[in-house]
């Protein structure tokens, strides 16, 4: 009976998840003393900005893509959307510089670095599709300029930046899902492995 339960897919997956990410690692109440620098705040700032981007994006989505041109409130929400994007990229780039300086991929954390870098790329795409979905002069110009670059790769045949419907769908559905999912995976990986320890001059012991 008990071995039957242990063999279940459900219990196996639960065991493996709890082994790799026990609750006190997912939501820790202590951290190593070397985590003592302001450079560590830029990751959480990036996530907070992502939260504000999604919140303001939801409000903009509620009233449709043209609302913000004619509504004072809509324009303000658009302004918040823009500035949270600026803060998001700002914090993410400083976070990247910081993690590079710490060689934060050490100790089995290389996939954490890779997911972070891929999240950066997905965010650039999300930002770009937002810029071409503004339905104003800026979006017209950016779309007609960007088409040449994307067309040169052959991608323009499938990713038509002049097609507002396609860009808007990517911007408000598919890319936010990608950005949030990638961020989630990235953060879970950070919690599983913990924050990378400092370089030590004479070390032979390997933690993996």
């Amino acid at each position, binding site marked *: 009976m008990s071995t039957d339960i242990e063999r279940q897919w459900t219990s196996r997956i639960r065991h493996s998840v709890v082994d790799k990410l026990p609750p006190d690692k997912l939501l820790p109440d202590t951290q190593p003393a070397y985590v*003592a*620098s302001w450079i560590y705040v830029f990751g959480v700032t990036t996530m907070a900005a992502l939260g504000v981007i999604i919140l303001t994006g939801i409000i903009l989505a509620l009233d449709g893509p043209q609302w913000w041109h004619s*509504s*004072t409130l809509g324009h303000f929400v658009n302004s918040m959307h823009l500035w949270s994007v600026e803060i998001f990229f*700002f914090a993410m780039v400083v976070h990247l510089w*910081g993690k590079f300086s710490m060689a934060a991929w050490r100790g089995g954390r290389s996939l954490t670095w890779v997911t972070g870098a891929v999240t950066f790329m997905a965010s650039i795409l999300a930002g770009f599709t937002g810029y071409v979905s503004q339905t104003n002069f800026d979006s017209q110009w950016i779309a007609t300029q960007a088409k040449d670059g994307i067309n040169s790769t052959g991608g323009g045949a499938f990713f038509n930046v002049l097609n507002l419907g396609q860009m808007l769908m990517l911007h408000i559905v598919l890319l936010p899902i990608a950005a949030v999912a990638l961020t989630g995976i990235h953060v879970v990986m950070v919690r599983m492995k913990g924050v990378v320890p400092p370089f030590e001059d004479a070390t032979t012991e390997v933690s993996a």
Partner: protein
Amino acid sequence: MAQGWGLGALINLDHYGHYIHWGVIQVSVGNFIVMVLMVASFLAALFAPFPGRRNRKGAK
């Protein structure tokens, strides 16, 4: 020009921008300020003292 003013816009950024030229480099003042602030934030994060870590030597 701009279609709506939104709430506020205490500082109007809606006229033609200023640009910095330096050889092949050409950057709008808006972007330049953002970049300078990024580098400044990075340096500040490196050098600013981090509060709440009094227990130095071997404290448990």
